């Protein structure tokens, strides 16, 4: 069992590797673009290798944390450096590590100015995201959660498009507002835990035992939910997303869509609902409605966009609605579906944004109307585009199907008994959500239609200087994503087994009431 003694060290290495990368870039590549690129891609690849190693060693049958490290950090406040893997984060860690090298390679040529700084920022962001996922201590989590903003702020603000400053300020201020309220909630939560149980601790495991009256739970969950819902984003808190995506450089969009948005849903799954189960039950109708609204709203807006990046941005809103739906169903199927959908959206949106970025590098416009007939012009590009489009539509054998199918199935299986009990809302919502499948097909195929088919039309394309089809680098990163997409679509079982226990834990946490005895909410419906 040597690997289990090795495990914690590996996890720490996995977490801190990007910082090593930052150090290296600052030391040896401050003025050397290529070297900084090489360093960061090497670091990212190494990190991915570590992540896969840990994933393989991860014991699906063992409950509780694995590869955990627990050191007291701010003893006075009961804050500790507590990281570890479990079913909740294992897949997302893998996803983050997987997207790392892809992001760097994707930005290989498209980032031209201040390259070393860019890679420093990407590495910092990677560190923060990884930390937010592996953190098992609320304080630590909040630290990483907030720390993510800063590199993203600079990535969008320095390498973004024309209105980048507006977009990036909007992004940061919007998200920061949620976080501030969340901070207040965190303080109060920990304080009340100390009052009730005498334990001064930020560890998730301890907080899961906190007992709060429904009223308090409601307020605290409100704060948490606001912060998470902004990140997800759920309608009507989504307006930062399109701007951020449109103005961000390709790498930024990829990270944003690939990982950052998952933070919100992960937060709901890890903290929001399990910490305040009773309030969660009270919120479910509202949140479920919002989730379905997001699905339809995002789809409808994606249907009428003229900016190719915005189409994908709005589609993200729609796709993450399924995640929320699955989580809220509190059915095993739904939860598992939600987790898979997170990963799937990470892969698919990343692929689509990369594709859009590649065409943007060639034609320098995001106007959908400016394109046409690319299938004739760039066959390989079009094949990849078609694959990711179909994955986003949720066609079977792709990861998108696995996620949507299971999430919807969960929502429905949860809704049916409610319907039999005379509560129609969940059923209605589930049915509407299913129609999202149709809308999804509508907007993505509209995109593909104008983009790929019809007469050849592309800016900067002239018979003497035809557009070049994908380079080997581009082919390979897209190929990697495609493999992942199909792997998750055809053989999700392995992944599902890793998360099964976590899903069960989530289920039991959310379904068991935790109001102090005697308070009215003590009885669970």
């Amino acid at each position, binding site marked *: 069992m040597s690997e289990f003694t090795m495990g914690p060290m590996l996890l720490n290495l996995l977490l801190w590797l990007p910082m090593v990368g930052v150090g290296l870039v600052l030391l040896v590549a401050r003025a050397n673009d290529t070297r900084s690129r090489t360093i960061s891609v090497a670091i990212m690849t190494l990190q991915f290798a570590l992540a896969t190693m840990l994933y393989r060693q991860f014991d699906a049958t063992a409950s509780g944390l694995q590869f955990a490290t627990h050191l007291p950090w701010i003893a006075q406040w009961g804050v500790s450096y507590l990281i570890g893997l479990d079913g909740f984060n294992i897949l997302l860690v893998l996803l983050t590590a997987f997207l790392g090298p892809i992001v760097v390679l994707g930005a290989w040529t498209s980032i031209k100015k201040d390259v070393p700084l860019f890679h420093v920022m990407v590495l910092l962001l990677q560190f923060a995201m990884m930390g937010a996922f592996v953190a098992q201590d609320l304080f630590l989590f909040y630290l990483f959660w*907030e*720390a993510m903003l*800063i590199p993203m702020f600079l990535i969008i603000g320095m390498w973004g498009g024309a209105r980048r400053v507006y977009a990036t300020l909007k992004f940061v201020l919007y998200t920061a507002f949620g976080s501030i*309220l969340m901070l207040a909630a965190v*303080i*109060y939560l920990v*304080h009340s835990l100390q009052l009730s149980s005498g334990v001064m601790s930020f560890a998730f495991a301890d907080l899961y035992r906190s007992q709060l009256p429904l009223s308090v739970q409601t307020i605290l969950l409100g704060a948490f939910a606001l912060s998470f819902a902004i990140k997800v984003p759920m309608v009507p808190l989504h307006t930062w997303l399109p701007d951020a995506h449109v103005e961000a450089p390709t790498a930024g969009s990829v990270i944003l869509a690939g990982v950052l948005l998952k933070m919100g849903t992960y937060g709901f799954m890890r903290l929001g609902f399990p910490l305040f189960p009773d309030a969660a039950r009270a919120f479910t109708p509202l949140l479920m409605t919002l989730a379905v609204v997001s699905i339809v709203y995002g789809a409808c807006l994606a249907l009428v966009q003229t900016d190719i990046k915005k189409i994908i941005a709005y589609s993200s809103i729609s796709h993450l609605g399924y995640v929320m739906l699955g989580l809220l169903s509190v059915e095993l199927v739904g939860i598992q579906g939600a987790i898979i959908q997170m990963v799937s959206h990470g892969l698919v949106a990343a692929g689509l944004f990369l594709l859009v970025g590649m065409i943007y590098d060639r034609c320098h416009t995001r106007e959908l109307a400016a394109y046409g007939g690319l299938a004739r012009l760039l066959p390989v590009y079009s094949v990849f585009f078609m694959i990711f489009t179909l994955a986003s539509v949720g066609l079977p054998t792709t990861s998108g199907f696995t996620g949507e199918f299971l999430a919807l199935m969960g929502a429905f299986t949860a809704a049916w008994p409610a319907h039999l009990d005379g509560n129609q809302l969940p059923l209605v919502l589930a049915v509407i959500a299913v129609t999202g499948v149709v809308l999804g097909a509508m907007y993505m195929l509209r995109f593909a239609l104008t983009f790929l088919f019809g007469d050849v039309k592309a800016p900067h394309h002239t018979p003497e200087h035809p557009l070049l089809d994908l380079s080997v680098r581009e082919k390979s990163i897209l190929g990697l994503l495609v493999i992942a997409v199909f792997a998750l679509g055809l053989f999700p079982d392995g992944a599902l087994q890793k998360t099964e226990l976590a899903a069960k834990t989530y289920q039991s946490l959310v379904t068991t009431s935790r109001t102090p005895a005697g308070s009215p909410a003590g009885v669970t419906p």
Partner: protein
Amino acid sequence: MNPQDALLAMLPEHLLLGGMVLLIVMGIVGRGARSALWVALGAVVASCTAAFWLSHAQFSAEPFAGQFSVTPAVLMAKGALLALAVPVLLMSRTEFSDGEFSILLLSSLYGLCLLPSSDSFLVMFLGLELLAMPVYALVLLAFRRPQSAEAAFKYLVLSGAASATFLMGVSLLYGATGSMSVSAFGPALASGDIMTRTAVVLVLLALFLKAAVVPFHAWAPDTYEGASIPVTAYMATLTKGAVLLAAVRLFSGVNVSGSLAQLLMVLPLVSIVWGNLAAIKQHSFRRMIAYSSIAHAGYLFYAFLGDADGRLQAVLFYVVAYSVTNLLAFAVLPQNDTDDQRDSLDALKGLYHRNPFAAAMIAIAMLSLAGLPPFPGFAAKFLIFKNVVAAGYTTYAVLGLVGSYLGIYFYLRVIQLLFMTAGEAAPSERPAGGTARVAGVLCLVGTLVLAVLPGWVLGAL
């Protein structure tokens, strides 16, 4: 009262005094304006180490009964603030060639040291005056622009008014309780007698005036802008910190409640919002920092809502975290021929491309001041608001946090100027001087320590 106690207890003060004397002598002998800085530095470092050493040795004494006493905690506080004075001195190198600066700074520091350990209002009054009076001169000293005089005058008049108010309060308190001892203040808080109440409030307001809390903040922006970089840095960090320590001394051992508590909630809250909003539209770096310091004064006074026993720690930690990052920003600020250029925010446009180090440092400072993790500003805010919540003022904690949210924008605006806005250097722009950069590095180290090992620091405080 045995002389040895007196010697040890006031060792830091004595060392400062020694430094002053030495400098004055050198001044009279008329040689070594160059070395003045180093002498002052030596004195400060010596007294700082002395303070740390004594506090580490758990030394506590009351050499002058009812007037002056020291405890390890107090010594630690002195040491921390004196340590903060080091970067100030270092960054003064580029501005001040002559010895006066050092002498005045030392004397002001002397006053600073008196405050936390004063047992009687007499000593505290002298401390406050000794703290402020040299600063009037300092504001003028690096006489770069006519406004300096105006700044100094405004500061002088208003802080004179503050002293008068303080005295008025003291005298009323004296009348009501018949004692000049600081320990009379605590009980007086709870007293129902109207005169006592007025007295307490007047004293409190005098401190508000010195610490620039709305609506007594008006002198700060003008004075900070009129002064020079090191002096502004000194005022924004140490002076404020000293006043706060005096306040801690006054409130020691008392949990505020009732209408006093409401004063302590409302005015700080207002100044948080006011400072953070007014800072948005500034063009002068120092003026912006002034408004930010007004907001921070608000956070600091929030700490008084918390329980008494955690208060000194919270305030001190906050002061240190806030000052270190503030000084960091000032230390790396690039030089320019005219003070206006050096001070204007526009001069920071695109600084990253000319001076990445400075840009990065300023960015870190701004983020820390904004209270974004993982920088020390966050931990400090966290501690204060944690105490406030623990004391049961949850609503005000939330309001305060929301107020602090308003601040994020203008800090980010600075970063935006540094990194995202194109701009070319003023012809005379040069990176900060060598010693200033040393100061910057010191502050950076401090920042990192506070960020990585807050637990350790808290344990020490």
